[in-house]
């Protein structure tokens, strides 16, 4: 075994120690509720996520804080960034087929009875806009500059 292998093992050992110590550190403080691990977990009615909503946007994720956005936070953003949602526009059928693709190819779990609520949220808040074969360039005021 080489010295490199030893230091690699040391790193692995230390990483494990770190994880264990972190778990101890977190669980030692009983006053603080365990962090909500984004998973299949059901969202409770008085969602703690609501406290992070500013001007209708859930600030940590950038998602529109419409009804059932918590389901999207919990089910979608544990694997990928919320930006993959907020930059896309799809109909209900389109969002459904994306979910099916993620289940088939990317290890997304069965969304059960939450699926329809998730699709409804996405189709309402991230719907296609009607555009022609090419958009106008639509520059914002501050994008104009004087070219010498």
């Amino acid at each position, binding site marked *: 075994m080489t010295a490199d292998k030893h230091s690699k093992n040391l790193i692995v050992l*230390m990483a494990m120690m770190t994880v264990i110590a972190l778990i*101890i550190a977190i669980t030692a403080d009983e006053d603080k509720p365990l962090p909500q691990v984004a998973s299949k977990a059901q969202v409770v009615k008085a969602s703690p996520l609501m406290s992070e909503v500013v001007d209708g946007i859930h600030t940590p994720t950038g998602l529109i804080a419409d009804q059932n956005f918590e389901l999207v936070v919990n089910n979608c953003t544990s694997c*990928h960034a919320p930006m993959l949602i907020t*930059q*896309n526009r799809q109909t209900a059928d389109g969002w459904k087929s994306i979910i099916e693709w993620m289940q088939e*190819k990317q*290890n997304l779990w069965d969304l059960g009875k939450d699926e329809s609520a998730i699709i409804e949220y996405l189709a309402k808040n991230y719907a*296609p806009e009607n555009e022609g*074969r090419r958009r106008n360039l639509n520059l914002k005021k501050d994008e104009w500059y004087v070219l010498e």
Partner: protein
Amino acid sequence: MKHMNRTSALHAILPALLFLVTHSVIGQYDVNQDPTDWKNPEMIVHNDRPWNIETPVHLLDDAFTPIDKMFVRNNGLMPTDLNAEEWTLTIEGESVPTSKTYTLAELKSKFKHYTYALVLECGGNGRSEMNPPATGNQWSYGAVNCGKWTGVRLRDVLEDVGISDDAVYVGYYGTDKHLSGDPKKVVISRGVPISKAMENETLIAFALNGEDIPIVHGYPLRLVVGGWPASASGKWLSKLVVRDQVHDGPKMEAPSYSVPKHPVAPGTEVPKEDMMIIESMPVKSVITYPKTGAIVKNGQEIKVRGHAWAGDLKVSKVELSTDYGQTWEKVNLMEPINRLSWQDFNGSVVLKEPGYYEIWVRATDENGKSQPMVVPGWNPRGYLNNATHRIAVKVE
């Protein structure tokens, strides 16, 4: 008491944390480092898990793209266990009678080095213009670059390994991690037909623009295939498979990196069997100077420049229009520095009436194919939009 426990636990892990932080640095780029820490601040982040970062077109003005202005398209999470000294590349597969493994040092010492400027463009560059919208990262025009890659020819390595006559395809495997955290799941494993693999410019690269490849771009080893969707250029390359059939790794299968075999109306659902794998990218061009939004004086000469490329082909002509494509003016077009490099163009435009204008650019490839002025061939995943690039200009 509870708080005592917590504090002492934190004290216990601090040395371990420090050790991990100081030992996770590889080369000049940290594995866990946010690439936006060193990418140009104007870069557009479409996604940060996985990283997908676009270059605003005016930042592509350099003859060859500096690393801090290169777009990033990752499919999974970057590997964290990279060690160039221990890195190996294994070549195996149905068409490899005796599989072979090389260390990175062996690859570097055994085979001749070549450097080529190669265009890498995401297959989905331009996707944001698709209507109805296509799913995925909503790239505008800037998921493209042309960097100088240094490495050994894939052909030389395959000849050293010895492959059989029935070889059809070469597929890659890297060491990136799946977003779901499933360690057994391969993130992406694409490739190219053997004919493309055997081209002079197809490299197993270990350097980019004269330095180690940054982690986010594939350190320490990357398959680099110019002119084809950049997803064919596998990062963190650890294994190549020479197949006796079309490679079937994740994201080889339709609809990924595939388009309909026959044109379809926008929004059509296309069965997998009616899709085909994208090969060479289409002809395209961008105006990198001036940046869109220029305000000029009446009659002022506006110098216009940029790059044009055409997948496997050469660009034969570049034209500009200031009247929405009613008339076109040919501009100077440079020769490529090598095959599969982009080609610079430059010209100038004088606008003689006040008002709002758009400058459009259109390139034509050596087979006479040019760029459409509207978004071409809608396809389910929004690939291959090579519509003319446009910038807005105002004359006062």
